[in-house]
């Protein structure tokens, strides 16, 4: 019998929620595509979804719904800093008042940070917090600036921390400089990145979009008025108890 799952299939990682028994799993997206397991994907979101799943939910909707589920305040700004892009929503009493999906200037931010962390073989907690911010346009172009600094003699932990601050600075301005910012995505586990923001940051972890899918799965009526744009194939499963 098929295992029923909800997935957030990102550029680098696929986040999976198993319906029964309930648990989460994170695996590289390249591996997920090669899995031979008997899976029934009830709902899918994410850049690498490519038509998978009975119902596909776009990332901004999943992010907003996940935010509403996880954040007690009805008004908040929530930023998802992914491997290849950056997107955010600002909600006021359940309505979106601002959002953006910056697929250019945030490009590969998360992925570049992960690559550099591995390349330098460094623990983000060991980075010097007083490093000077490096102005970066995006992850890729920022990397060249960082290596310029290293070539000038700046120690690589200090240059890397400056790079992180540059990425955080871009994100902070993209989301209109809130006093409190909720953060979603794998970078929530990177303390150096969290401390790079010039505002208070509350990390929500990497399952925020999956929480949005769970909300829709539990309350199918929440998908309206998108019902005409999503597949009807999942109707038979929407009443399945979690």
């Amino acid at each position: 019998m098929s295992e029923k799952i909800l997935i957030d299939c990102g550029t680098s990682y696929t986040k999976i929620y198993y319906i029964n028994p309930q648990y989460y799993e994170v695996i590289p997206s390249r591996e997920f595509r090669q899995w031979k397991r008997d899976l029934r994907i009830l709902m899918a979101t994410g850049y690498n979804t490519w038509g998978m799943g009975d119902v596909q939910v776009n990332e901004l909707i999943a992010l907003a719904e996940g935010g509403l589920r996880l954040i007690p305040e009805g008004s908040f700004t929530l930023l998802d800093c992914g491997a290849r892009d950056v997107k955010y929503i600002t909600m006021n009493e359940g309505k979106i008042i601002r959002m953006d999906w910056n697929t250019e200037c945030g490009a590969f931010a998360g992925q570049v940070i992960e690559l550099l962390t591995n390349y330098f073989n460094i623990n983000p907690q060991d980075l010097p917090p007083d490093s000077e911010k490096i102005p970066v346009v995006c992850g890729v172009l920022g990397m060249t600036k960082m290596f310029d600094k290293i070539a000038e003699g700046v120690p690589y932990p200090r240059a890397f921390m400056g790079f992180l601050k540059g990425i955080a600075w871009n994100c902070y301005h993209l989301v209109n400089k809130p006093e409190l910012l909720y953060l979603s995505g794998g970078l929530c586990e990177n303390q150096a990145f969290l401390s790079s923001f010039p505002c208070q940051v509350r990390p929500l972890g990497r399952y925020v979009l999956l929480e949005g899918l769970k909300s829709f799965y539990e309350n199918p009526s929440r998908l309206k008025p998108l019902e005409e744009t999503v597949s009807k194939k999942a109707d038979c499963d929407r009443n399945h108890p979690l």
Partner: protein
Amino acid sequence: MGVPHWEEIQKYGKRGDTIIDLDDALPDVSVEDSYLPKTYCSILKRVTSNAITLAQAGKLHLVLADVGEGKCDGMRYIASFLRELLPIPVVEVRNTNSTGCGFPICQSQLPLRKKVELIVETVSKPLNTSVKLRKTAPSCGFWGVPPSDFALLELFPPNTHIYGWTRCMENKTPANRELELEVDEGVPTVFFSQNFCQRSALAFHLAKKHQGLFVQMDHHLTKSIRAMVEAFIKFNVT
């Protein structure tokens, strides 16, 4: 090009000329990047390519270009060099008509894409009498110009009303800035502009003022624009 005065267009129609809307995507005419800078309005790139391609093929015998406030500065500059490039007359006109003829299509029950298609068609010819229009209450708003990719319009829910320049088009008052600025308070509205269009300033300002969604598009509807419009409609349209 643009929305010349109705009487001006009909002058050519009555003598038996075929009217071609050069703002439209035309079959067998590709948009060439060589006439204008790469970072430029997609609509004006299309207008320019259409005019040059058709004129060179002998399929265009006169260009009637609205270069007034009802169109944009870009059109005025382009018209000035088309006069040099084209072997046919380029007639510059300014549509300052202030007598509105109403905008029943904008407020009707038709799907948004159909509404915009009809408004574009009726720049040069009367509305087909077989089209029945019924006034509706707005569920959502679309503010802006007809987009370069009409797929954008398919994302909107039934009873989406049209505001902005597209409504001015239907009203036959393309230079009516007061009407362009007006939206229905409380109606969740998407404020759209083409990339590199000066109207972006107005769209951005109005979106902030009315807590709407500001979106810009270049040639085609992208995944991120689609996602933003869908999300806005999902959470803001009841």
